[in-house]
């Protein structure tokens, strides 16, 4: 049987041992070339930082090794009996939140690391909140550094209780919590003689048992984002389209939104062969009959469940860096392949990602590093969906002068919004 692929992100407060845990996972799964191990051992000796061996495996920048802090994300594979995991290591410190989110946005599941010694810290809560906001519903907790608390059961239970409160308040239910020492390898791949009181599964056994690999969203309505149109000659035009959800089949009638054009899929082409169907992830060339013009950014769907043409929507957004958002600002929003100007109609609230509460209702401004709920209005109709319905078109980024500067999840679109706007609490 072939192994299934799972992308895992490791999150948690700085210094709670993320790099050490990942180094341990690699080491115990036999994924590290011998020569590399020898190099690392020499370097550890030279640096005089004993015990940092596993973290050194991960950190590749000079600054990271000297400072002992991860600066950017890194992706590394390891294997268990059941899955081929790609583990995404993200920096934990505050100013690198955008790197943590970049990593988390590619993950199917998250491992939250909490130090048994220090317990829950600010970034513990912040990371879980952001992970949940990004739509990652699979979570496992490792209570690390059990060696630093003499493998004490009472301490583990204390931290677990605190954790359960936080996780429940965010909507994570029945999250497995495993006591581990990444440094010594207790309960990572192998069980622990020092924690005989724990009769649960090790961390990797837990992963194998509870994590479900992501499945292709073939059973959702068709959404295909137009990437480009290639004119091979006067008569032949190939529409290049990336399928996000559903199945595209030839000879089917489609609607292309927001323009509203209609046509028939005459041919689905890959280089050198024709297909009868294309599935999520495929980028295919299409010959479409009966349509006049198709442009990058449009969405191809079937008319029974057409891509929505949205004028306004509510979203939860996370601001990374070099950005500040005020009521009335016009921003460039990228969703699928579409780039559309949207106006900040109203900032509804600012959410405190550490205390997980509403920090301010109707603030005038959202700043770097903040999370908020916002009503946007698109200057012209655009196709997006509620995240709960079609996640692939329910998430977007805000473009800034250096690239992606903020990200958002669509909570409600137009129709439901009208009802909401009649609600006095929103209008004041």
């Amino acid at each position, binding site marked *: 049987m072939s192994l299934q692929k799972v992308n895992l992100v490791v999150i948690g407060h700085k210094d709670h041992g993320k790099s050490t845990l990942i180094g341990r996972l690699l080491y115990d799964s036999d994924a590290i070339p011998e020569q590399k191990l020898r190099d690392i051992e020499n370097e550890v000796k030279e640096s005089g930082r004993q015990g940092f061996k596993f973290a050194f495996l991960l950190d590749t920048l000079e600054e990271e090794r000297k400072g002992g802090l991860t600066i950017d994300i890194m992706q590394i594979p390891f294997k268990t009996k059941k899955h081929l995991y790609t583990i995404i290591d993200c920096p934990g410190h505050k100013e690198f939140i955008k790197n943590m989110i970049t990593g988390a946005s590619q993950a199917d599941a998250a491992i939250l690391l909490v130090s048994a010694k220090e317990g829950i810290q600010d970034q513990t809560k912040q990371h879980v909140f952001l992970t949940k906001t990004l739509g990652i519903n699979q979570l496992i907790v490792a209570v690390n550094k059990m060696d630093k608390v003499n493998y004490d059961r009472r301490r583990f239970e204390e931290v677990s209780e605190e954790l359960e409160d936080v996780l429940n308040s965010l909507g994570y239910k029945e999250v497995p919590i495993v006591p581990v020492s990444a440094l010594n390898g207790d309960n990572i791949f192998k069980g622990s003689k020092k924690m005989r009181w724990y009769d649960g599964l090790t961390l990797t056994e837990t992963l194998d048992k509870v994590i479900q690999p992501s499945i292709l969203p073939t059973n959702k309505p068709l959404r295909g984002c137009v990437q480009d149109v290639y004119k091979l000659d006067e008569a032949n035009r190939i529409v290049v389209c990336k399928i996000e959800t559903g199945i595209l089949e030839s000879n089917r009638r489609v609607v292309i939104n927001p323009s509203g054009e209609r046509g028939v899929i005459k041919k689905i082409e890959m280089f050198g062969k024709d297909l009868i169907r294309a599935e999520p992830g495929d980028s295919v060339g299409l010959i479409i009959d009966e349509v006049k013009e198709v442009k990058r950014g449009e969405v191809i769907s079937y008319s029974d469940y057409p891509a929505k043409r949205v004028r306004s929507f509510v979203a939860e957004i996370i601001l990374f860096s070099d950005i500040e958002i005020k009521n009335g600002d016009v921003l460039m929003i990228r969703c699928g392949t579409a780039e559309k100007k949207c106006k900040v109609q109203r900032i509804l609230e600012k959410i405190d990602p550490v205390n997980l509460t509403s920090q301010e209702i109707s603030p005038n401004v959202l700043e770097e590093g903040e999370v908020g709920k916002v009503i946007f209005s698109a200057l012209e109709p655009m196709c997006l969906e509620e995240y709960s319905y079609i996640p692939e078109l329910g998430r977007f980024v805000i473009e800034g002068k250096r690239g992606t*500067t903020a990200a958002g999840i669509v909570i409600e679109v137009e129709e439901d919004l009208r009802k909401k706007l009649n609600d006095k609490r929103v209008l004041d």
Partner: protein
Amino acid sequence: MDLNDEVSSTRLQELERKSIAIIREVKAQFNNLAVLWSTGKDSTATLWLCKKAFFGKIPFPVIHIDTGYKFPEIYEFRDKIAREWGFNLVIAKNEKAIKAGLSPKKGRFECCTLLKTETLKDLIEKEKLDALILAIRRDEHGIRAKERYYSPRDKEFKWDYKNQPAEMWDLYVKPAEDYSHMRVHPILHWTELDVWQYVKEENLPINPLYFAENGRRYRSLGCKPCTVSVPSDAKTIDEIVEELKTSRIPERAGRAQDKERAYMMQKLRSLGYM
């Protein structure tokens, strides 16, 4: 590493379609792009992906950076493939530095920087390129593991690896300003083994230096003075695939610039090296 011994054609399909989607994104977003081709397995696979993405015809230049120190097999292979695949090959060479006698003997860091990075810089300026497709992979080297699919370079061509823009989901964003050109890495998520499986599946031409002769072969191709072969008996692609499933020698073990001194790759790359 035998991480991918279960690699199936499904995995290759997944890798391929993501790469093709990225290549099409760059073409749609940038005006003046090119792809860098060393003639090695990774960049040859990337050229093939470009060919597929545009239904057989690569609609932008293919750049080969010639340091003058490459293996004769590299030049032969380059000219043969360029003829057969029919693309616009542009050869970039720092003639001035080569004539002045620059060589690895005078320092590898300086040699790599002048003959590769500077040559590339000059070409980007001359051709006014705003995006460049490169075949680097995360699993090749620790510092490359920090890369994004879209990696903007500033006006001095530097890579600000400590302050990279976020990259979310599959939304590859072109910055509005503050960059000189975009480095695009469509096979960032592939492993060495994936590339070989793909070469086999697609029956791609491959440089003979990769195959063992007298018990040694090259696993990564660079300049002749700075690249050594590794012990191997793999004479065919199948044998290479088998070897990689059990090998515990890093891919770039034969590449001197990775080892010369600590963090040399980090320093080279932050200055604009590939």
